[in-house]
Protein backbone atom coordinates (compact mmCIF):
# COMPACT_ATOMS: atom_id res chain seq x y z
CA UNK A 1 0.00 0.00 0.00
CA UNK A 2 1.15 3.52 -0.66
CA UNK A 3 1.16 4.85 2.85
CA UNK A 4 4.00 7.33 2.62
CA UNK A 5 2.93 10.14 4.91
CA UNK A 6 2.19 13.47 3.37
CA UNK A 7 2.32 16.78 5.12
CA UNK A 8 -1.31 17.84 5.25
CA UNK A 9 -0.27 21.26 6.54
CA UNK A 10 1.47 22.22 3.33
CA UNK A 11 -0.03 19.98 0.64
CA UNK A 12 -3.50 20.60 -0.69
CA UNK A 13 -5.32 17.32 -0.93
CA UNK A 14 -8.32 17.08 -3.17
CA UNK A 15 -11.42 14.94 -2.80
CA UNK A 16 -10.43 13.11 -5.99
CA UNK A 17 -7.00 12.19 -4.60
CA UNK A 18 -8.57 10.72 -1.46
CA UNK A 19 -11.17 8.83 -3.50
CA UNK A 20 -8.49 7.38 -5.78
CA UNK A 21 -6.38 6.37 -2.78
CA UNK A 22 -9.32 4.52 -1.16
CA UNK A 23 -10.38 2.90 -4.43
CA UNK A 24 -6.83 1.68 -5.14
CA UNK A 25 -6.55 0.36 -1.60
CA UNK A 26 -9.75 -1.62 -1.87
CA UNK A 27 -8.92 -2.89 -5.36
CA UNK A 28 -5.61 -4.24 -4.08
CA UNK A 29 -6.98 -5.68 -0.85
CA UNK A 30 -10.16 -7.23 -2.22
CA UNK A 31 -8.47 -8.24 -5.49
CA UNK A 32 -11.00 -6.39 -7.63
CA UNK A 33 -10.18 -4.46 -10.79
CA UNK A 34 -9.88 -0.75 -10.02
CA UNK A 35 -12.37 0.24 -12.73
CA UNK A 36 -15.00 -2.11 -11.22
CA UNK A 37 -15.12 -0.08 -8.02
CA UNK A 38 -17.87 2.52 -7.89
CA UNK A 39 -17.28 5.58 -5.74
CA UNK A 40 -20.95 5.76 -4.85
CA UNK A 41 -21.63 2.13 -3.89
CA UNK A 42 -21.53 1.03 -0.24
CA UNK A 43 -18.16 -0.61 0.35
CA UNK A 44 -19.74 -3.54 2.15
CA UNK A 45 -20.80 -4.68 -1.35
CA UNK A 46 -17.13 -5.46 -2.02
CA UNK A 47 -16.90 -7.68 1.01
CA UNK A 48 -15.09 -5.15 3.19
CA UNK A 49 -15.15 -6.43 6.78
CA UNK A 50 -14.55 -4.42 9.95
CA UNK A 51 -10.91 -5.48 10.35
CA UNK A 52 -10.12 -4.37 6.79
CA UNK A 53 -12.03 -1.12 7.25
CA UNK A 54 -9.98 -0.41 10.39
CA UNK A 55 -6.74 -1.20 8.59
CA UNK A 56 -7.75 1.13 5.78
CA UNK A 57 -8.57 4.01 8.12
CA UNK A 58 -5.25 3.46 9.94
CA UNK A 59 -3.26 3.60 6.72
CA UNK A 60 -5.25 6.66 5.64
CA UNK A 61 -4.27 8.35 8.90
CA UNK A 62 -0.63 7.57 8.23
CA UNK A 63 -0.89 8.92 4.69
CA UNK A 64 -2.77 12.11 5.59
CA UNK A 65 -1.16 12.58 8.98
CA UNK A 66 -4.47 13.23 10.76
CA UNK A 67 -6.89 11.46 13.14
CA UNK A 68 -9.72 9.48 11.58
CA UNK A 69 -12.29 7.40 13.44
CA UNK A 70 -11.93 3.66 12.67
CA UNK A 71 -15.70 3.58 12.09
CA UNK A 72 -15.31 6.04 9.17
CA UNK A 73 -16.48 3.59 6.49
CA UNK A 74 -19.53 2.58 8.52
CA UNK A 75 -20.58 6.15 9.17
CA UNK A 76 -19.74 7.21 5.58
CA UNK A 77 -20.16 3.97 3.65
CA UNK A 78 -19.21 5.03 0.11
CA UNK A 79 -15.85 6.24 -1.19
CA UNK A 80 -17.37 9.61 -2.13
CA UNK A 81 -18.92 10.15 1.30
CA UNK A 82 -15.79 9.05 3.16
CA UNK A 83 -13.53 11.30 1.09
CA UNK A 84 -15.83 14.29 1.57
CA UNK A 85 -15.82 13.74 5.33
CA UNK A 86 -12.03 13.45 5.44
CA UNK A 87 -11.69 16.69 3.52
CA UNK A 88 -13.77 18.39 6.22
CA UNK A 89 -11.56 16.82 8.92
CA UNK A 90 -8.43 18.09 7.20
CA UNK A 91 -9.94 21.56 7.00
CA UNK A 92 -10.81 21.49 10.68
CA UNK A 93 -7.40 20.33 11.80
CA UNK A 94 -5.55 23.18 10.11
Amino acid at each position, binding site marked *: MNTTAIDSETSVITQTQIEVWIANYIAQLCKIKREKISHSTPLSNYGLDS*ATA*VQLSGDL*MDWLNCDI*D*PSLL*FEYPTIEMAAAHILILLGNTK
Partner: protein
Amino acid sequence: MTQAAQMITSTDTINTGASAEAIQAHYDISNEFYALWLDPSMSYSCALWEEGDSLEDAQIRKLDLHLQQAQATNKNNLLDIGCGWGALLNQAVSQFGVKTAVGLTLSAEQVDWIKSRNAESNRDNISVHLESWEHHTPVAPYDAIVSIGAFEHFAKSRTSKTEKLKAYRKFFAWCHSNSTNDCSLSLQSIVYENYNEANPNPFVEEIFPESELPRIAEITAACEGLFEIVQLRNDRMHYAKTLQSWYTSLRKNRQMAIKLVGEKTYKFYEKYLGVFVVGFHIGTVNLVRLEARKLPSIKLDA
Protein backbone atom coordinates in the same frame (compact mmCIF):
# COMPACT_ATOMS: atom_id res chain seq x y z
CA MET B 1 -12.19 -5.59 26.66
CA THR B 2 -12.30 -4.88 29.98
CA GLN B 3 -10.78 -4.13 33.22
CA ALA B 4 -9.29 -6.81 35.34
CA ALA B 5 -10.74 -10.15 35.06
CA GLN B 6 -12.13 -12.68 37.25
CA MET B 7 -12.39 -16.32 36.91
CA ILE B 8 -11.40 -19.59 38.10
CA THR B 9 -9.57 -22.74 37.45
CA SER B 10 -12.32 -24.54 39.17
CA THR B 11 -12.69 -28.21 39.83
CA ASP B 12 -16.41 -28.10 40.39
CA THR B 13 -19.07 -29.02 37.90
CA ILE B 14 -19.96 -25.57 36.66
CA ASN B 15 -17.76 -24.54 33.80
CA THR B 16 -17.39 -20.98 34.90
CA GLY B 17 -14.99 -19.09 32.76
CA ALA B 18 -11.61 -18.05 31.52
CA SER B 19 -8.57 -19.38 33.38
CA ALA B 20 -6.08 -17.23 35.25
CA GLU B 21 -3.58 -17.92 32.47
CA ALA B 22 -6.02 -16.68 29.85
CA ILE B 23 -6.66 -13.53 31.84
CA GLN B 24 -2.98 -12.86 32.40
CA ALA B 25 -2.30 -13.30 28.67
CA HIS B 26 -4.29 -10.12 28.15
CA TYR B 27 -3.66 -8.05 31.26
CA ASP B 28 -0.07 -8.82 32.20
CA ILE B 29 1.63 -7.56 29.05
CA SER B 30 3.19 -4.47 30.60
CA ASN B 31 1.86 -1.75 32.88
CA GLU B 32 3.98 0.80 31.01
CA PHE B 33 2.37 -0.23 27.74
CA TYR B 34 -1.15 0.31 29.08
CA ALA B 35 -0.08 3.61 30.65
CA LEU B 36 0.76 4.90 27.16
CA TRP B 37 -2.86 4.95 26.06
CA LEU B 38 -5.09 4.73 29.16
CA ASP B 39 -5.90 7.79 31.25
CA PRO B 40 -3.81 8.54 34.38
CA SER B 41 -6.18 6.49 36.60
CA MET B 42 -5.48 3.46 34.36
CA SER B 43 -9.20 2.77 33.93
CA TYR B 44 -9.44 0.03 31.31
CA SER B 45 -13.19 0.03 30.74
CA CYS B 46 -15.90 2.14 29.17
CA ALA B 47 -16.02 5.73 30.42
CA LEU B 48 -19.15 7.84 30.95
CA TRP B 49 -18.93 10.90 28.71
CA GLU B 50 -20.49 14.30 28.89
CA GLU B 51 -19.91 17.25 26.56
CA GLY B 52 -16.42 18.71 26.91
CA ASP B 53 -14.99 15.80 28.93
CA SER B 54 -11.40 14.65 28.67
CA LEU B 55 -10.93 10.88 28.91
CA GLU B 56 -9.84 11.31 32.52
CA ASP B 57 -12.99 13.32 33.37
CA ALA B 58 -15.19 10.68 31.72
CA GLN B 59 -13.47 7.85 33.58
CA ILE B 60 -13.95 9.56 36.93
CA ARG B 61 -17.62 10.15 36.05
CA LYS B 62 -17.92 6.41 35.37
CA LEU B 63 -16.33 5.50 38.72
CA ASP B 64 -18.67 7.94 40.51
CA LEU B 65 -21.72 6.43 38.79
CA HIS B 66 -20.80 2.95 40.00
CA LEU B 67 -20.05 4.11 43.52
CA GLN B 68 -23.40 5.93 43.63
CA GLN B 69 -25.21 2.89 42.22
CA ALA B 70 -23.53 0.66 44.81
CA GLN B 71 -24.74 3.16 47.50
CA ALA B 72 -21.11 3.27 48.61
CA THR B 73 -21.11 6.56 50.54
CA ASN B 74 -19.70 5.98 54.05
CA LYS B 75 -20.00 2.20 53.74
CA ASN B 76 -17.72 0.00 55.82
CA ASN B 77 -16.59 -2.66 53.41
CA LEU B 78 -16.64 -2.35 49.64
CA LEU B 79 -15.63 -5.08 47.21
CA ASP B 80 -14.45 -4.43 43.65
CA ILE B 81 -14.48 -7.63 41.61
CA GLY B 82 -12.00 -7.22 38.78
CA CYS B 83 -10.38 -4.13 40.25
CA GLY B 84 -7.89 -3.44 37.47
CA TRP B 85 -5.23 -0.97 38.54
CA GLY B 86 -7.32 0.20 41.51
CA ALA B 87 -8.97 3.39 40.22
CA LEU B 88 -12.34 2.62 41.79
CA LEU B 89 -10.78 1.58 45.11
CA ASN B 90 -8.98 4.94 45.26
CA GLN B 91 -12.11 6.87 44.43
CA ALA B 92 -14.15 4.92 47.02
CA VAL B 93 -11.87 5.70 49.97
CA SER B 94 -10.86 9.22 48.93
CA GLN B 95 -14.20 10.64 47.69
CA PHE B 96 -16.99 8.46 49.09
CA GLY B 97 -15.87 7.93 52.68
CA VAL B 98 -15.64 4.16 52.28
CA LYS B 99 -13.76 2.76 55.27
CA THR B 100 -12.25 -0.35 53.69
CA ALA B 101 -12.06 -1.18 49.99
CA VAL B 102 -11.05 -4.63 48.80
CA GLY B 103 -10.07 -5.42 45.21
CA LEU B 104 -9.85 -8.77 43.48
CA THR B 105 -7.96 -9.41 40.26
CA LEU B 106 -6.25 -12.29 38.51
CA SER B 107 -3.54 -10.06 37.09
CA ALA B 108 -0.27 -10.15 39.05
CA GLU B 109 0.90 -6.91 37.41
CA GLN B 110 -2.20 -5.12 38.67
CA VAL B 111 -1.72 -6.44 42.21
CA ASP B 112 1.89 -5.21 42.25
CA TRP B 113 0.79 -1.82 40.93
CA ILE B 114 -1.83 -1.32 43.65
CA LYS B 115 0.44 -2.60 46.44
CA SER B 116 3.24 -0.27 45.42
CA ARG B 117 0.83 2.68 45.50
CA ASN B 118 -0.42 1.59 48.93
CA ALA B 119 3.16 1.58 50.16
CA GLU B 120 3.95 4.96 48.57
CA SER B 121 0.98 6.65 50.22
CA ASN B 122 1.23 4.65 53.42
CA ARG B 123 -2.47 3.76 53.32
CA ASP B 124 -4.09 0.72 54.85
CA ASN B 125 -7.71 1.15 53.79
CA ILE B 126 -7.20 -0.49 50.37
CA SER B 127 -6.30 -4.13 49.98
CA VAL B 128 -5.95 -6.27 46.88
CA HIS B 129 -5.94 -10.03 46.38
CA LEU B 130 -4.74 -12.12 43.48
CA GLU B 131 -7.72 -14.44 43.47
CA SER B 132 -11.12 -15.01 41.97
CA TRP B 133 -14.31 -14.10 43.80
CA GLU B 134 -15.06 -17.78 44.08
CA HIS B 135 -11.95 -18.43 46.14
CA HIS B 136 -12.22 -15.26 48.15
CA THR B 137 -13.21 -15.39 51.82
CA PRO B 138 -14.30 -11.98 53.12
CA VAL B 139 -13.14 -10.80 56.52
CA ALA B 140 -16.66 -9.38 56.94
CA PRO B 141 -19.70 -9.36 54.62
CA TYR B 142 -19.56 -6.60 52.00
CA ASP B 143 -22.04 -3.74 52.12
CA ALA B 144 -21.28 -2.50 48.59
CA ILE B 145 -20.10 -4.48 45.56
CA VAL B 146 -18.89 -3.14 42.21
CA SER B 147 -17.75 -5.13 39.22
CA ILE B 148 -16.63 -3.35 36.07
CA GLY B 149 -15.50 -5.28 33.05
CA ALA B 150 -15.09 -8.65 34.73
CA PHE B 151 -18.42 -10.31 33.96
CA GLU B 152 -17.18 -10.78 30.37
CA HIS B 153 -14.89 -13.51 31.67
CA PHE B 154 -17.35 -15.41 33.86
CA ALA B 155 -18.42 -17.92 31.21
CA LYS B 156 -16.08 -19.99 29.15
CA SER B 157 -16.30 -19.78 25.38
CA ARG B 158 -18.41 -22.33 23.54
CA THR B 159 -20.47 -23.34 26.56
CA SER B 160 -24.17 -24.02 26.31
CA LYS B 161 -26.73 -21.39 27.29
CA THR B 162 -27.63 -23.49 30.34
CA GLU B 163 -24.02 -23.68 31.53
CA LYS B 164 -23.57 -19.95 30.96
CA LEU B 165 -26.63 -19.16 33.03
CA LYS B 166 -25.42 -21.45 35.83
CA ALA B 167 -22.06 -19.71 35.89
CA TYR B 168 -23.67 -16.27 36.09
CA ARG B 169 -26.12 -17.40 38.75
CA LYS B 170 -23.25 -18.78 40.79
CA PHE B 171 -21.69 -15.32 40.75
CA PHE B 172 -24.86 -13.58 41.96
CA ALA B 173 -25.37 -16.29 44.59
CA TRP B 174 -21.83 -15.71 45.84
CA CYS B 175 -22.47 -11.95 46.08
CA HIS B 176 -25.74 -12.66 47.89
CA SER B 177 -24.09 -14.97 50.44
CA ASN B 178 -21.17 -12.66 51.13
CA SER B 179 -22.98 -9.38 51.60
CA THR B 180 -25.03 -7.51 54.18
CA ASN B 181 -28.77 -7.12 53.66
CA ASP B 182 -28.39 -3.47 52.62
CA CYS B 183 -25.85 -4.29 49.92
CA SER B 184 -26.24 -2.82 46.44
CA LEU B 185 -24.37 -4.10 43.42
CA SER B 186 -23.18 -2.06 40.46
CA LEU B 187 -22.18 -4.01 37.40
CA GLN B 188 -20.74 -3.07 34.02
CA SER B 189 -20.19 -5.51 31.19
CA ILE B 190 -19.85 -5.76 27.45
CA VAL B 191 -22.76 -7.80 26.09
CA TYR B 192 -23.56 -9.38 22.75
CA GLU B 193 -26.14 -7.38 20.84
CA ASN B 194 -26.41 -7.85 17.07
CA TYR B 195 -24.06 -10.85 17.11
CA ASN B 196 -24.44 -14.48 16.19
CA GLU B 197 -22.79 -16.71 18.79
CA ALA B 198 -23.22 -19.68 16.47
CA ASN B 199 -20.71 -18.04 14.16
CA PRO B 200 -18.09 -16.61 16.54
CA ASN B 201 -15.53 -14.07 15.43
CA PRO B 202 -12.11 -15.77 15.82
CA PHE B 203 -10.38 -12.43 16.33
CA VAL B 204 -12.54 -11.67 19.38
CA GLU B 205 -11.55 -15.04 20.82
CA GLU B 206 -7.91 -14.21 20.20
CA ILE B 207 -8.24 -10.98 22.19
CA PHE B 208 -9.97 -12.53 25.17
CA PRO B 209 -9.03 -16.19 25.16
CA GLU B 210 -11.55 -18.61 26.65
CA SER B 211 -14.12 -15.92 27.43
CA GLU B 212 -17.72 -15.63 26.27
CA LEU B 213 -19.75 -12.45 26.48
CA PRO B 214 -23.16 -12.42 28.17
CA ARG B 215 -26.46 -11.18 26.80
CA ILE B 216 -28.53 -8.76 28.88
CA ALA B 217 -31.33 -11.30 29.23
CA GLU B 218 -28.86 -13.83 30.67
CA ILE B 219 -27.68 -11.36 33.30
CA THR B 220 -31.21 -10.42 34.34
CA ALA B 221 -32.27 -14.08 34.45
CA ALA B 222 -29.23 -15.05 36.50
CA CYS B 223 -29.89 -12.56 39.30
CA GLU B 224 -33.61 -13.30 39.72
CA GLY B 225 -34.56 -13.85 43.35
CA LEU B 226 -31.08 -12.76 44.53
CA PHE B 227 -30.77 -9.14 43.42
CA GLU B 228 -33.50 -6.90 42.00
CA ILE B 229 -32.52 -4.63 39.13
CA VAL B 230 -33.07 -0.99 40.01
CA GLN B 231 -31.80 0.54 36.80
CA LEU B 232 -30.08 -0.52 33.64
CA ARG B 233 -28.55 1.51 30.84
CA ASN B 234 -26.99 0.72 27.51
CA ASP B 235 -23.99 2.88 26.65
CA ARG B 236 -22.39 1.42 23.55
CA MET B 237 -21.58 4.82 22.01
CA HIS B 238 -19.74 5.70 25.22
CA TYR B 239 -17.52 2.69 24.61
CA ALA B 240 -16.99 3.58 20.95
CA LYS B 241 -15.77 6.99 22.11
CA THR B 242 -13.57 5.53 24.87
CA LEU B 243 -11.98 3.06 22.46
CA GLN B 244 -11.48 5.78 19.89
CA SER B 245 -9.58 7.77 22.49
CA TRP B 246 -7.39 4.78 23.41
CA TYR B 247 -6.82 3.97 19.74
CA THR B 248 -5.67 7.51 18.96
CA SER B 249 -3.34 7.61 21.98
CA LEU B 250 -1.86 4.21 21.18
CA ARG B 251 -1.14 5.29 17.60
CA LYS B 252 0.40 8.55 18.81
CA ASN B 253 2.73 6.54 21.05
CA ARG B 254 3.50 3.92 18.42
CA GLN B 255 7.31 4.08 18.68
CA MET B 256 7.36 3.74 22.46
CA ALA B 257 4.69 1.02 22.40
CA ILE B 258 6.71 -1.04 19.91
CA LYS B 259 9.79 -0.56 22.07
CA LEU B 260 7.89 -1.91 25.09
CA VAL B 261 5.96 -4.83 23.62
CA GLY B 262 7.25 -5.37 20.07
CA GLU B 263 5.62 -4.65 16.73
CA LYS B 264 3.44 -7.77 16.63
CA THR B 265 1.72 -6.99 19.94
CA TYR B 266 1.41 -3.31 19.04
CA LYS B 267 -0.33 -4.16 15.77
CA PHE B 268 -2.60 -6.63 17.51
CA TYR B 269 -3.75 -3.98 19.98
CA GLU B 270 -4.14 -1.35 17.30
CA LYS B 271 -6.35 -3.71 15.33
CA TYR B 272 -8.33 -4.85 18.37
CA LEU B 273 -9.08 -1.32 19.58
CA GLY B 274 -10.07 -0.25 16.07
CA VAL B 275 -12.28 -3.27 15.44
CA PHE B 276 -14.04 -2.75 18.76
CA VAL B 277 -14.69 0.92 17.92
CA VAL B 278 -16.55 -0.39 14.89
CA GLY B 279 -18.26 -3.18 16.88
CA PHE B 280 -19.73 -0.74 19.39
CA HIS B 281 -20.50 1.82 16.71
CA ILE B 282 -22.64 -0.55 14.66
CA GLY B 283 -24.09 -2.43 17.65
CA THR B 284 -22.49 -5.83 17.25
CA VAL B 285 -21.78 -5.50 20.95
CA ASN B 286 -23.27 -3.26 23.61
CA LEU B 287 -22.25 -1.96 27.03
CA VAL B 288 -24.58 -2.50 29.94
CA ARG B 289 -24.40 -0.78 33.33
CA LEU B 290 -26.81 -1.90 35.96
CA GLU B 291 -27.67 -1.24 39.56
CA ALA B 292 -29.12 -4.09 41.60
CA ARG B 293 -30.29 -4.28 45.19
CA LYS B 294 -29.99 -7.37 47.35
CA LEU B 295 -33.23 -9.22 47.95
CA PRO B 296 -33.84 -10.77 51.34
CA SER B 297 -33.54 -14.53 51.48
CA ILE B 298 -36.93 -16.13 51.26
CA LYS B 299 -37.63 -18.89 53.72
CA LEU B 300 -40.34 -20.93 52.08
CA ASP B 301 -41.21 -22.82 55.24
CA ALA B 302 -41.62 -19.64 57.28
